[in-house]
C-alpha cells in the first residue's frame, strides 16, 4: 500500500546491559523497510519472559501494512499475540515458580513508526505505550520528542502493554499517537528508556559534542563502536546499565 519513493538510511543496534549475554536482551527492534514500518520494544525486567513478548510484538506489528495504529486493529493484534505467547508457555512443563510467574504474564513498552505519502509529501505517524521515545530531528536539530519530552520524566513506572488479555484493555487507554510531516534531511531516532534519557539530557544541556559522538558511532554502523561508546558512559555512570535499542531512520 505504501508506494512512496524515498531514500532511507536505517541503522539498528541492540546492546545488552553489561554482565548479561545477548540472549538475555529484553529490548527488541524490527522494521519492514519496503513498507516503511519500524518498531522497538523494551520488555519489563521483572516480568516473565519479557524478551519473547517484546520480540513477538515488534516483529508482528511491522508485518502489517498499513500498520496497526487504529485501536480497532491494534487491540485484536495484541490479544492474538498474547494468547499465542501464553499458549506457548502452557505447552511447556515448567517448574512451580515459572508456571506461577507465567500466569501473571509479561509486559513491554512499545514504540511504532510508519512513514507514508500524503498530498505529495511524506508524513509520519507514531504510536507509543510506555517509556520508549521517538526523537524527530530536522537537519540535526530536535523538532519533536514523543511521548516523553524531558530527561527527568524517565524513571517512573509507566503502564506497559501486557501479554495477559484480561489486563490489556486498561493499558490501551494510555496509548498515545502523534503524526507530522517529514522530508529530506530529517531523521528519526527510536530509543529505549536508558538511551533516550541520556540523549534528552544531552539536548537539555546543549552537549553538542556528546550528540555528535553518538551520531558518529551510529553512522559507523558498527555495533562495537556503539558498544564502546555506551560502555564508557556506563563506566562513568552517565547512563544507567540497561539494555539499549537504537533504531535510526534517516531520510536522504
Amino acid at each position, binding site marked *: 500500500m505504501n508506494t512512496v519513493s524515498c531514500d532511507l538510511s536505517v541503522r539498528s543496534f541492540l546492546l545488552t546491559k553489561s*554482565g548479561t549475554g545477548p540472549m*538475555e536482551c529484553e529490548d527488541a527492534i524490527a522494521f519492514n523497510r519496503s513498507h516503511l514500518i519500524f518498531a522497538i520494544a523494551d520488555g519489563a525486567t521483572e516480568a*516473565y519472559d519479557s524478551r*519473547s513478548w517484546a520480540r513477538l510484538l515488534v516483529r508482528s506489528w511491522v508485518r502489517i501494512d498499513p500498520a496497526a495504529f487504529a485501536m480497532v486493529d491494534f487491540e485484536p493484534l495484541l490479544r492474538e499475540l498474547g494468547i499465542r505467547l501464553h499458549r506457548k508457555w502452557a505447552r511447556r512443563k515448567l*517448574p512451580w*515458580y515459572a508456571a*506461577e510467574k507465567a500466569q501473571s504474564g509479561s509486559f513491554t513498552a512499545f514504540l511504532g513508526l510508519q512513514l507514508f505519502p500524503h498530498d505529495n509529501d511524506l508524513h509520519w505517524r507514531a504510536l507509543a505505550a510506555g517509556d520508549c521515545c521517538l526523537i524527530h530531528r530536522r537537519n540535526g536539530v530536535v523538532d519533536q520528542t514523543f511521548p516523553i519530552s524531558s530527561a527527568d520524566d524517565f524513571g517512573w513506572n509507566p503502564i506497559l502493554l501486557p501479554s495477559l488479555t484480561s489486563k490489556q484493555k486498561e493499558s490501551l487507554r494510555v496509548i498515545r499517537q502523534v503524526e507530522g510531516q517529514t522530508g529530506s534531511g530529517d531523521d528519526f531516532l527510536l530509543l529505549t528508556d536508558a538511551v533516550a534519557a541520556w540523549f534528552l539530557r544531552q539536548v537539555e544541556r546543549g552537549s553538542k559534542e556528546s550528540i555528535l559522538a553518538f551520531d558518529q558511532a551510529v553512522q559507523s554502523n558498527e555495533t562495537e563502536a556503539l558498544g564502546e561508546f555506551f560502555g564508557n558512559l556506563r563506566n562513568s555512570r552517565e547512563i544507567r546499565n540497561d539494555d539499549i535499542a537504537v533504531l535510526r531512520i534517516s531520510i536522504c
Partner: protein
Amino acid sequence: MPYTAEISRSNPTCFVILLDQSGSMADSFGGAEGLRKADFVADVVNRTLHDLVIRCTKAEEIRSYYFISIIGYGGAVQPVFSGALAGKAVVPIGEVADSPARIETRTKRVPDGAGGLVDQQVRFPIWIDPGTGGGTPMCAALSQAKSILEQWLVEHKNGFPPTVLHLTDGESTDGDPTGPGKDLLSLASSDGPILLFNCHVSSQRAGKIEYPSDSSVLPDQFAQTLFGISSTLPESFRKAAQQIGVQVSEGAKGFVFNGDPASVVQFFEIGTRPANLR
C-alpha cells in the same frame, strides 16, 4: 554514594531473617482467636521467600540475585529451613526455589472481574515451620548473623550490602543487644554498611510506632535499644514503603515497635525491596 550497587548474578545480595521463636511467640496475635504470632510470622516469611523467588524468575530459570539465611532463636539459635534445606545457614535463591519442604494449597480471595470476590486455590510453598519455646537469646542471634555475614562478605565484597530483618516480641534474655547489634552493623560491602531492620510485635493493642526518625517518640528503654541498632532506611526502601502506602520521612529508621499483623507484612515487603535489580 552507598546503597546504589546493582544487584546481579555476579554481585548478588543477601537477606538474613532473624526470627524470635521464644515461648511467647505461641501467644495469640492481633486479637484474632487461634492465630499465634509464630504461625503468622512463619506464613509471612514463607510468602516473602515465595515473592523473592518469583522476582528472580526470568523465564524458566532463576537468576541468583539473592542469598537467603533464616535463623531462629528461642530454645536454640540455629538455621530454621525445613525439608531438604534443613541445617543450611545460607542458601542461594535458586536452591530455595527448587527445595521447598512442601507445597500446600491455600485459599485466596481474588477479584472475580465483576466487582466481587471469589475463592481461588493457590499453591503455597513452605520453607519454614513455626517454632516456639525457650527464652529470647537475642544477643546470640545477632552474633550468629554477624558470623554468617562475615563469611559471606568475603566472597561478595562489592555487592549491595546484606539486609538483616529481625523480628521479636520481647526483650533479650541474654543481655543487652546493643553491643552485638553494633558489631553486626560494623560489617560492610564496598557499597555501604549492612542494613539491620528491627520489628517488634506485640499481642497488646498498644500504640504502634512505625519507622520513626526520632527516638523521643519511643515509650521505654527497650524501644530505645532496638531503635539504636536499627539502620536508617536508604532511599530505595523509603520508596518501596511509599509504594505500599506507608509514609516514611527522610532519616526514618527501619524499626517498628508494638507492630500488629499488618506491620509485619509491611516490614518484610519494605525490607526486601532494594532497588537496582539488573
